[in-house]
């Protein structure tokens, strides 16, 4: 009996943690389950029977697939630009000394500390004042997404860079590598996991964003906007298929990335 209570006491935190994790994953289970659901009526969101129809007729609901395509396009483009600009900024913040570092730090933090509805409405106010009210669409969404992803990229890459030993770069320089070679042969491979994590984060932020996008999208419909619209009309079960697919892809990317970085760090050790 004593052994049992001891064991429980020792593992209590872990068990609570696992319960919380279960809570976090519960909706994901529902999404996967619902992707196989055959609803009895159009407006019911209850599990009534198993079917593969949602998977085979993925693009049937009007605008679903085009909205996913738009979200993917914007997500990829915004991720590339935000990751590029953000990585440069992170290098500047960690590896360079200049006046106004503190101010730059606050400036980068501010977008993360601003509620989305405020950022979305200020962008809309800007576009409308600039006479772009009728031209809202792909490019205004793209601009907004790069803006809110940037800070998260800087913070993620900065963390990786700050944990990196600058002496490795000095060693390269001592061995007559020029700055360009030092960067590509030493700094970049070491920071790469951070950059990859930042890219993943910004893609998920972009793909998932609703509040800012909804204000600045004009007539365009992204995937979250499609889901929002569907909520009032009756939700097609196919959105759960999209959710499941995205989840699976993310898992694969994370697992592959993790194994890759483990191999690399073993190679460096």
């Amino acid at each position, binding site marked *: 009996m004593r052994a049992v209570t001891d064991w429980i006491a020792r593992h209590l935190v872990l068990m609570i943690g696992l319960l919380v994790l279960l809570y976090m994953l519960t909706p994901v289970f529902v999404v996967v389950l619902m992707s196989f659901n055959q609803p009895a009526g159009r407006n019911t969101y209850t599990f009534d029977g198993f079917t593969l129809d949602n998977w085979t007729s993925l693009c049937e609901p009007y605008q679903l697939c085009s909205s996913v395509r738009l979200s993917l396009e914007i997500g990829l483009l915004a991720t590339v630009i935000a990751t590029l600009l953000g990585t440069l900024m992170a290098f500047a913040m960690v590896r360079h000394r200049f006046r106004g570092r503190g101010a730059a730090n606050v400036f980068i933090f501010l977008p993360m500390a601003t509620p989305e509805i405020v950022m979305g409405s200020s962008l809309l106010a800007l576009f409308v004042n600039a006479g772009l009210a009728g031209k809202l669409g792909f490019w205004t969404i793209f601009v907004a997404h790069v803006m809110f992803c940037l800070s998260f990229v800087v913070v993620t890459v900065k963390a990786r860079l700050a944990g990196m030993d600058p002496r490795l770069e000095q060693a390269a320089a001592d061995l007559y590598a020029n700055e360009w070679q030092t960067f590509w042969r030493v700094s970049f491979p070491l920071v790469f996991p951070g950059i990859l994590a930042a890219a993943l984060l910004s893609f998920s932020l972009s793909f998932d964003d609703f*509040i800012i996008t909804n204000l600045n999208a004009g007539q365009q419909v992204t995937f979250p906007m499609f889901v929002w619209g569907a909520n009032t009309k009756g939700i097609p079960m196919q*959105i759960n298929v999209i959710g499941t697919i995205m989840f699976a892809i993310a898992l694969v990317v*994370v697992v592959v990335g993790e194994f890759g970085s483990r191999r690399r760090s073993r190679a460096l050790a």
Partner: protein
Amino acid sequence: MAHVVPTDVPDTGPPAPEQQRRGLAGYLLLTPGSLWLALFFLVPTVTLVATSLYDPAGSLELGYEMTGHIQNYPDAIADFWPQIQRSLVYALIATVVCIVLGYPLAYAIAFKAGRFKTILLVAVIAPFFTSFLVRTLAWQYLLGDTEWFVSFLRWLPFTGADLQLINTPFAVVAGLSYNFLPFFVLPLYASLEKMDHRLLEAASDLYASPARGFLKVTLPLSMPGVVAGTLLTFIPAAGDYINAELLGSPNTRMVGNEIQDLFYAGDYPTASALSVALMVTIVVMVAVYVWRAGTDELV
């Protein structure tokens, strides 16, 4: 405020000065990103403040007149006072729930998970990819009147047979807590993970009980993570309207719902005034909080 930047490594500052380069290169690297932020974050914020001072008599088609109409603020705040209060209260409760649920989880991942650490971390991040709205709809289903969870609660002796969860403040707060929990767990995990374990050993060598060791060593050292995590939870929760819309009722509308609707209705001055009011309120609350956390607990 720079010291609360929720980096994985709180800004430990630059490595020793001689390891950093001076000169123009730093500015050059910084310029493109800063320009983007200046053009599409700073300028819009200024525009928003300007728009909040337009004459509300105008319209999107006819154009607005800049009249420095400061009256927009008292009007907006008076009209939407209940929603403003609700947003702050819901966001506060959700943040507290995130601390209660998120701290043990972050602690367990950082110290108790052993070789399963990565898997657990992935499990924290993975729900992100299932799409915010789709997950919130899943909650709509889980909390629905006909589902087993509510049936089970109704069956319990101390709850009424007409208990309802969906369309209540409870559902909205639950949704907010759920959706922003990873934003609390990740920075906290990062700051726990960096902790020097020898400090805890030192505490126990000095006859501190595990509980005392936690309170006097672990908790204070994790404060930067807690501060960063609560900010990343509270701020988006206060501005959110998705949870209020999908899980709540007209009686649980938050300030975000109203701002969104005002923009759709074309009432830009009032919408902007309400946005600015929300931002100012949050900035003041955050500043006080960071200052208190900085003077009382972080030392």
